């Protein structure tokens, strides 16, 4: 097992490298813009050409790209993602201040999605082609088709119209008042979770159907086991192995979802930070958020791989 973990960790290095290069270059593709913007906004100077050169030097943009990258990557490894162009605050601090909102939203949504998707998926597979199966599948089809920003918009607008109710505006930190905090997060995460649950349900159903047709399930029946035991002991564990990978696939989608949901419910998360930065072309912040989301996804995938190793004995011992 230790060897397996080590292997996974080492395999992360090239991916991390490539991801950081992507994060760095994508944002730097048009570096001229920001200088013009800053100069035109008159933040730093009068607009003379030498000011431009000065600013370029100050931001380190006059060096060759690879040197810029090495410099940036070296700092990033030490947790320093530079400073915001406008506010002169460290990007790392900005991100840290927002990350908890996004993570709480994301984790709650994932839990809700799993809580809805897994049981329905298992049930639909075990009772294939029955009414329950059809209801479950119809639900998933609808949830897949309905964009979460629409659902969110409706949830904000309709109750306000009908009952004059609107979601809480103030965000209370979790450790101050967990109940109030959860109240704020309940609706956003429910919306995000519901739309994700459809994907989980479909995948679970497919995997369960596949597993239920395996030889060892027939063996389990032939032993005289009850259906509950056949399903829970023999089928679910094997079906969960591929479903776990799905969680890894879902996390990036989840991140996208949080950006939108944060906007709708005005939650001060990473998504808001990113959108603010995009509208002001605050490149260090954009790069920083971009990189952090990539790294989080990578870490979750590592975790998924380890779970995989735990669930599938073949992986554990073979590698």
């Amino acid at each position: 097992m230790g060897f397996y973990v080590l292997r996974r960790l080492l395999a992360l290095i090239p991916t991390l490298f490539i991801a950081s290069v992507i994060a760095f270059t994508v944002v730097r593709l048009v570096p001229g813009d920001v200088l013009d913007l800053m100069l035109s906004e008159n933040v730093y100077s009068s607009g003379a050409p030498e000011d431009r050169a000065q600013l370029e030097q100050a931001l380190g943009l006059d060096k060759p790209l690879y040197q810029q990258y090495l410099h940036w990557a070296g700092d990033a490894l030490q947790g320093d993602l530079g400073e915001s162009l406008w506010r002169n605050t460290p990007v790392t601090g900005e991100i840290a201040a927002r990350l908890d909102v996004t993570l709480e939203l994301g984790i709650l949504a994932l839990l809700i999605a799993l809580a809805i998707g897994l049981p329905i998926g298992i049930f639909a597979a075990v009772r294939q082609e029955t009414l329950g199966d059809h209801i479950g599948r119809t639900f998933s089809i609808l949830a897949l088709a309905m964009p979460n920003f629409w659902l969110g918009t409706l949830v904000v607008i309709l109750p306000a119209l009908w009952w004059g109710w609107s979601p809480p505006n103030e965000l209370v930190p979790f450790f101050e008042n967990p109940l109030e905090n959860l109240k704020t997060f309940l609706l956003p995460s429910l919306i995000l979770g519901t739309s994700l649950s459809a994907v989980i349900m479909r995948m679970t159903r497919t995997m369960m159907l596949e597993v239920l047709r395996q030889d060892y399930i027939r063996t389990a029946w032939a032993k005289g086991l009850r259906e509950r035991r056949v399903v829970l002991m023999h089928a679910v564990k094997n079906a969960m192995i591929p479903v776990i990978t799905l969680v890894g696939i879902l996390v990036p989608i989840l991140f996208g979802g949080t950006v939108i949901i944060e906007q709708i419910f005005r939650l001060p998360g990473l998504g808001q930070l990113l959108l603010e930065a995009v509208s002001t072309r605050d490149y260090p912040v954009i790069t920083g958020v971009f990189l952090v989301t990539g790294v989080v996804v990578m870490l979750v995938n590592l975790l998924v791989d380890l779970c995989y190793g735990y669930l599938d004995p073949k992986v554990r011992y073979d590698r």
Partner: protein
Amino acid sequence: MTHTDSHTDVTTPLLQVSGLKVHFPLRPGLFGKPAAMVKAVDGVDFTVHRGETLGLVGESGCGKSTTGLAVLRMTPLTEGRIVFDGEDISHPDAATTKRLRRKMQMVYQDPFGALNPRMRVLDIIGEPLRVHRLTRTRAEYRERVMDLLDRVGLKAEMADRYPHEFSGGQRQRIGIARALAADPSLIICDEPVSALDVSIQAQVINLLEDLQRDLGLTYLFVAHDLAVVRHLCHRIVVMYLGRVVEVADRERLYQAPRHPYTQALLGAIPIADPDPEVQARFNPSVDGEVPSPIDPPPGCPFHPRCPHATDLCRREAPRPLDVEDGHSVACHLHDPSRAAEMNHSEPSYQEQARNIA
């Protein structure tokens, strides 16, 4: 290359394999170095003469199929030499490979997977003709395929159908027709009848026999079923764990097998006759299973299951030795120079007991 000249020389064997080794990396290790090697074929020698059928038999994991693929040059050699038709093809260049792809053909085990379901029979059988540009006109091509269909006992009107419209036996005939299309000198048959039912098996066995008689074909016949092999093969190479343990012509191999493994293999085949006298010949004398080729036992690969194993067998792998003309056995029991050592040490029962577990 003297390739065309040697072709006329009928006395040289068609195929000579010597010291063949094929090792695969099992999986990449931590830093790209293979963590373990599978020694699929580990030192194999044999010869195939023109017009004969050489059987390559053994249980799963003995390396018989890999040997077939190595001869076909579809898998790289780790070591050894393969001479085909007088030409060394161990490390063929592009032109030689191209020529080989025409001169050697393969018949596969799985009648369902070996034919592209999206192609018509006409184009499946004709593919070698197209690949090697053996026919000039469309009419010539079609005529040639019709000939081949007729050869393997299928009707001409079947040419325009798709594989799924055929039964397993018919598909195997199509596969054989495809193998014949380029007029090869050697056909490698990889378990061509083992996926078929008994009644269909006999049809294909007879077809292979007829084709050999009419066209003077040479077969390398890879199989695990000794009853089938006995029917089709003139000489037989018995393999175990990547090595050759015994080579003999079929009369000698089936009537007087020398190697303990060959004896065990023959003794373990159930005989289709409930008669008690016949059943008395049934003698499944070995226990245990074939060890993993990743970590083969030292010395003679068969020693952990062999009832005659001695210290010598555990220590040193036996070399193949001619016991009679054309009958060679790789076993210390049959090596007169080792007789003394074999008699001195007793077979270890502990070892046998351990390997039953």
